[in-house]
């Protein structure tokens, strides 16, 4: 089975974010980028399928500027992806998720693919659009928020579930197919030290970006949430004292209770 897994570099959760000079984007200067958490799940899913279906190949593909995109592809290789391809686009290029989907689709058309996996959404802009748009651009079935993706070899079909309001859908579908993954069956694995060192020497194939349409959407403004104020720390020696002070605040200051 030929599995393509799309990954994206996103700012590390603990990194300090600043707004860029244009006021419309995140300032990438000094930001540490990592493989997005949802994409780690997608990679894990790809590797679980590879382990279950003999002769499978996992091909990681990413779109973005140097060096962060190359770094997350190396992280994907360290986790166990067999190949990695990098579509280099400059920093500060189109922010339109549909453009990302079109460019990815143009590259993926040139690669063998029975299954294209994405995280359900990016860990930074959270658009959640690329998997669906990618399916449309490739002209194949696409499903989002998928869990428990498996390959039924006897019937040559993928089977999977979608958690929906108050229930669960069960699906089956032959490939090729695009899946936006809710989560992996297991916790994503951690790359081992020898694999990390080996991934540093792995070949990252460059693919020229093509397929972008003239995007009509541009980001206008990017704001960080205002720091919250008004938090009150209660100092106490015993739980009873903490509870008494809290009740007094809720009654007298916040007037939650009469």
């Amino acid at each position, binding site marked *: 089975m030929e599995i393509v897994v799309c990954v994206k570099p996103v700012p590390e959760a603990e990194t300090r974010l600043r707004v860029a000079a244009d006021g419309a984007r995140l300032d990438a200067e000094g930001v540490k980028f990592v493989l997005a958490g949802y994409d780690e799940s997608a990679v894990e899913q790809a590797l679980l399928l590879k382990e279950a279906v003999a002769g499978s190949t996992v091909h990681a593909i990413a779109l973005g500027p140097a060096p962060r995109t190359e770094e997350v592809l190396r992280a994907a290789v360290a986790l166990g992806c067999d190949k990695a391809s990098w579509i280099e686009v400059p920093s500060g290029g189109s922010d339109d998720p549909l453009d990302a989907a079109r460019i990815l689709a143009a590259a993926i058309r040139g690669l063998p693919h029975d299954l294209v996996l994405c995280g359900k959404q990016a860990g930074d802009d959270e658009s959640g659009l690329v998997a669906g748009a990618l399916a449309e651009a490739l002209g194949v079935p696409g499903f989002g928020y998928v869990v428990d993706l498996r390959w039924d070899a006897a019937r040559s079909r993928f089977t999977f579930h979608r958690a929906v309001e108050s229930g669960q859908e069960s699906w089956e579908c032959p490939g090729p197919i695009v899946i936006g993954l809710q989560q992996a069956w297991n916790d994503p694995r951690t790359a081992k030290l020898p694999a990390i060192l080996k991934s*540093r020497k792995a070949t990252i194939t460059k693919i020229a970006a093509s397929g972008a349409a003239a995007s009509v959407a541009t980001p206008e403004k990017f704001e960080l949430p205002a720091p919250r104020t008004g938090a009150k720390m209660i100092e106490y020696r015993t739980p009873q004292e903490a509870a008494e002070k809290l009740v007094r605040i809720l009654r007298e200051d916040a007037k939650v209770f009469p």
Partner: protein
Amino acid sequence: MPEFSLTPDQESLRDLARKFARTEMAPHAAECDRTARFPEEIYRKAYDLGLMNLNVPTEFGGSGLGLFEQCLIVEELAYGCAGMTTSIIANCLALEPILLGGSPEQRRRFLTPFCASYQLASFALTEPSGGSDAGAIRTRARRDGDAYVLEGEKCFITNAPHASLYTVFATVDPERKHKGIAAFVVPRSAKGVSPGKDEEKMGHRASSTGTVRFEGVRVPAEDRLGEEGDGFSIAMRTLDQTRTPIGALATGIAQAALDLAAAYSLKRETFGKPISEHQAIQIKLANMAQAVHAARLLTWHAAWTIDHGGKGTLESSIAKCFASDAALDVADEAIQTFGGYGYMKEYPVEKLLRDAKLTQIYEGANEIQRTVIARELLRAYQ
């Protein structure tokens, strides 16, 4: 010119250790400290990820890292829990004599099966009568045909109760002092090897420390490392290699203490403002930051010197001594920043002080480090 930025390779190794320390080690640090539990499941995971036999070449199944990369990893691990780190890196110390003193055949015979699965090894040098005075070893090795018979007791041995392999230093003739010491590789399974109970320690409580008795233990002569009189030199050259990571371990403790103190100072208010706005606290934080930074750079420099073929005795002694003193000072000031809360076991800073203390004592007490520093220094003036 020196290069102070890390390569992408080094960053990725540091990130691995950082993630492991913060997600696997730190959440269990307080519990293991309180109960003195030896968290073998964490050590097993460290082995699985390649974070254990860092100094062993890849051809024998280790991670094959230089000292600089080892130090990057050790600092990150110690940030999560110093005690666990001591147990994780004890293999590096125990296996170094085989790397330095073993023949190619011995390296293959001992290291390859050892590194193929999760196993612990212990470096057995210190004795009840003394640690720093390694020339005064009393454990005897009597030649008997094609074997030696070991008699004696070692103490303060890291991981001793859990180890499957010991590198043991014993004298073939106490009269010959340093020149009579020989190094041996002894499996736990050898008849007459008996590890004692775990010691109750002030810090590093997730690590295990104990005695090992050798009673009539027959060790084949082919398991001796080097010649009969090479043991002392093997031990000293081992410590020349492993001293620098102790500087990194101490730096990790100090960085953790600084991070906790700085974060707390921004939250805690007195006299109507966060204590970070009081100069008294700012001066503490500035001093702590200087100590951490200097400890790290000294450690990096010592590691770099040794990786580039230098002996590094002076540099590694300075790094270990300075960083361990810094760790104790920074942990102490972190407690002071926390005030009464810092003294409470409910908060994580007092553990750092207890953990920091050991770094001044083990792998050569700081008094010995200063003796070494002075000797190396004065040599330049003579």
